[in-house]
């Protein structure tokens, strides 16, 4: 499992490990040593650079995706039930 802290910053990290750490890294949820280790790797590895960039894009894209199930009419029934309940309160 990549999520251990046993590896020292001086050791090199593999692409496979960088990949496993990507989301925690993007969220700044890794320790200082690990962060440096990953940053160092990214500076020298085009593959991981592309990968981390793509995961960041995906993170931003899913928020912007048009939703088929999200139209106001879809929530109509629930909104009416809520309004009825409020009037009974």
């Amino acid at each position, binding site marked *: 499992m990549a999520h251990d802290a046993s590896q020292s910053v001086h050791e090199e990290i593999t692409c496979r490990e960088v990949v496993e750490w990507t989301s925690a890294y993007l969220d700044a949820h890794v320790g200082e040593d690990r962060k440096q280790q990953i940053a160092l790797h990214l500076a020298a590895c085009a593959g991981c650079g592309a990968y981390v960039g793509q995961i960041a894009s995906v993170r931003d894209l899913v928020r912007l995706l048009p*939703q088929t199930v999200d139209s106001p009419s879809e929530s109509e029934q629930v909104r009416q039930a809520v309004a009825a309940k409020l009037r009974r309160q």
Partner: protein
Amino acid sequence: MNAATTTRRESIGQSPRALPNTSSVPPRSLPNDEQRLLARLRQSDEQAFDELVTKHHGALIRMAMGHVGDREVAEEVVQDTWMAVIESLDRFEGRSSLRTWIFGIMIHKAKDRGVREKRHTTFSDFETFDEEQEDAVDPSRFHRSGEWAGHWAFPPQPWDDQTPERLLASQQAVQAMNRAIEALPVTLKDVLILRDVEGVEAKQVCDILQITETNLYVRLHRARERVRRAVETYLEGCQRAV
């Protein structure tokens, strides 16, 4: 009102300690706009509820669907959630955000309902997911041995600055991403929708789902990777078509 009347829902991710009934005084720990919203909700302001329901409906339904596997049942779960919100609003202590509290109630109800409706076990949503076992990325994309062991053998093809925009503009790409999200096992879908779609803080996602942060990132990353893979496949298809 005393500690014993605190609902189980109120205590999600928190110690079940109740404060005196604070309906006229909004909790101080909430940001101002949330306090104003809460005050309106406590006055049974229909418009405030309407806005809130509309805002969260899509995410609530999608998450509920992951647990119950049926659109109609999901609607019921969401409706029940709002009924519970209205009933227990006076007991909401404001130690989590309103949204965290509402999604927590929904998850409880969806899980209960999902257990009762176990007949849906053939759904892909119930794919068992072993987070200790599964690699996020297909291991065959890395060198297995030798000097380059663990390094990319088949690295991702870089996207350019316009790729995200182009993806959003393509109906096919949007469909591919939405399908990948819908196909996620429920444990992955919950974290992706809360963290990335709804933008809930990592800590609050952990509270709602009762998981550790390490767990959160393992799941979140696997979910994002599956969406990334869907995009990759879509882009490969485009290239072949040229």
